[in-house]
């Protein structure tokens, strides 16, 4: 097909149409996902928005749906969140720093560590639940307490935090490190004063996303002892329930009203998670570095 100078209209109509069909297919994929998600959300909201009120937030659950609230569950979810952050961030960032800055990639144990972290991120959450039951609740005798729930959720989300932290640390260019070393900084000073501060936005984003994942988990908490009926406010070393578990319990009840209650609790849970995610995205956009 020779090129005619001066004739700039498209050479072939066929490739044009293939392009259009492809684009249409992409839109369709997008639409399916959005429509299904949208339908779910709309249904939940329609059902539950009327009962998102003070009763829901400040009353304990009860057999009477009209006075039942989710205060213990909401409090427990908040406590779990705080503990999760306290545990995962130091552990995750520490591991990431070790792997990125100190570990010698040639050594077999470091390579083993690498492979394991990737694998752990893919393990189903119920397996973590079994692990928690066996080692934490029974093994060391912690019992079915909030702390055990927090610890097991930590293990669950830790690989994600490690991976996110590693990405953030890796994104810090080597030239920054070179510049710091060249001034006479020790390895510790380079990591603490240059690498970590520069990686903080990425680490924060990753941690918050991991946190929001952890707060939505139900299965491991069930196995570690989140009771389905808790009428008292939780303490760290006491028995507990969490919002996902509470929702699960309410759905299982026969009364229609409990389904509505569940829907409103779902709205609260979604609200918490979406806020966290939005915050993470805002953080990322605000502090994103263009190297």
């Amino acid at each position, binding site marked *: 097909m020779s090129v005619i100078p001066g004739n700039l209209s498209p050479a072939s109509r066929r490739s044009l149409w293939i392009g259009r069909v492809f684009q249409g297919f992409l839109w369709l994929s997008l639409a399916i996902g959005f429509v299904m998600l949208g339908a779910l959300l709309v249904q939940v909201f329609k059902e539950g928005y009327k009962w998102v009120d003070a009763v829901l937030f400040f009353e304990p659950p009860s057999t009477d749906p009209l006075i039942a609230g989710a205060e213990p569950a909401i409090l427990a979810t908040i406590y779990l969140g705080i503990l999760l952050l306290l545990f995962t961030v130091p552990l995750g960032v520490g591991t990431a720093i070790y792997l990125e800055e100190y570990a010698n990639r040639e050594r077999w144990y470091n390579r083993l560590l690498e492979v394991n972290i990737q694998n752990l991120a893919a393990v189903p959450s119920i397996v973590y639940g079994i692990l928690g039951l066996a080692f934490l609740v029974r093994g060391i005798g912690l019992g079915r307490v909030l702390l055990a729930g927090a610890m097991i959720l930590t293990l669950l989300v830790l690989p994600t935090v490690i991976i996110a932290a590693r990405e953030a640390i890796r994104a810090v260019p080597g030239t920054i490190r070179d510049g*710091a070393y060249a001034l006479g*900084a020790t390895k510790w000073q380079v990591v603490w*004063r240059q690498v970590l501060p*520069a990686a903080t936005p990425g680490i924060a984003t990753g941690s918050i996303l991991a946190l929001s994942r952890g707060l939505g988990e139900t299965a491991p908490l069930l196995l570690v002892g989140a009771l389905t009926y808790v009428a008292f406010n939780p303490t760290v070393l006491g028995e507990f329930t969490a919002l996902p578990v509470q929702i699960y319990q309410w759905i299982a009840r026969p009364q229609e009203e409990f389904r509505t209650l569940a829907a409103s609790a779902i709205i609260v849970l979604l609200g918490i998670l979406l806020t966290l995610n939005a915050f993470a995205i805002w953080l990322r956009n605000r502090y994103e*570095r263009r190297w």
Partner: protein
Amino acid sequence: MSVKMTDVSVNLAEREQRLPPKEFREVVFDVKDLGVSYNGNPALQGVSLEVYRNFVTAFIGPSGCGKSTFIRCFNHMNDLIPGAKVEGKILYHGEDLYGAHVDPVEVRKRIGMVFQKPNPFPKSIYDNVAFGPRVLGMDDALDDRVEKALTQAALWDEVKGRLKASALSLSGGQQQRLCIARCLAVEPEVILMDEPASALDPIATTRIEDLMHELKREYTIVVVTHNMQQAARVADMTAFFSVTRAGEGERVGLLVEYDSTTKIFTQPSDKRTEDYVTGRFG
């Protein structure tokens, strides 16, 4: 810097260049048969030369000749590259830089480095310059140190009103002068520059060259450059490196000629040097 006009044996080129004769020069680095290899593959071999105090010494040569590898030996930056091995000796004021008890951190306090692409830290201008003194425990009178360093780097007037602004808001040439100021703030004796102007436009380049001329009064400067006209303009002594094939045919760098800059650019002793500076190399 008096030149003994009656000494006939002194290199005529050196006389014209107004370099002090050899007896008056102080040796800062004495390199003896230095070699560097990466994971067993030799990159540089058999380099011997002396670097003099308050001189600008340039390393020139084609790419792959090992000049960047060589300059990184002076401040132990090759330690950061896994698999890098340094053989031979570099005597710094008589002490072996690669001796058993030498701490790279101590070395880098005295021998600073400026890199090819300006690499300011993602912090404020002030914090960039203050970083070195802070980590080295020199944080008394920090404001004065920062001002002095920025003045010496010919940047003070341009930034004195916005020290808290991000360093990344400066232009390329300004960023490089900031990196120089950062280096000067720890009061080194030697400043190593690895192609400091290759990422800059001509005007910024000229400012860096003028700066080198100023700084050599107080510091000793070693610069790697792939722009041989730059070496001709700024350097007192020039070392020409080239590549050769080693035993198994792999490329390895070596020092071909080391002399006063005027000699290298008017009457080089080695044909390879002449081929390179006249642009007939390769």
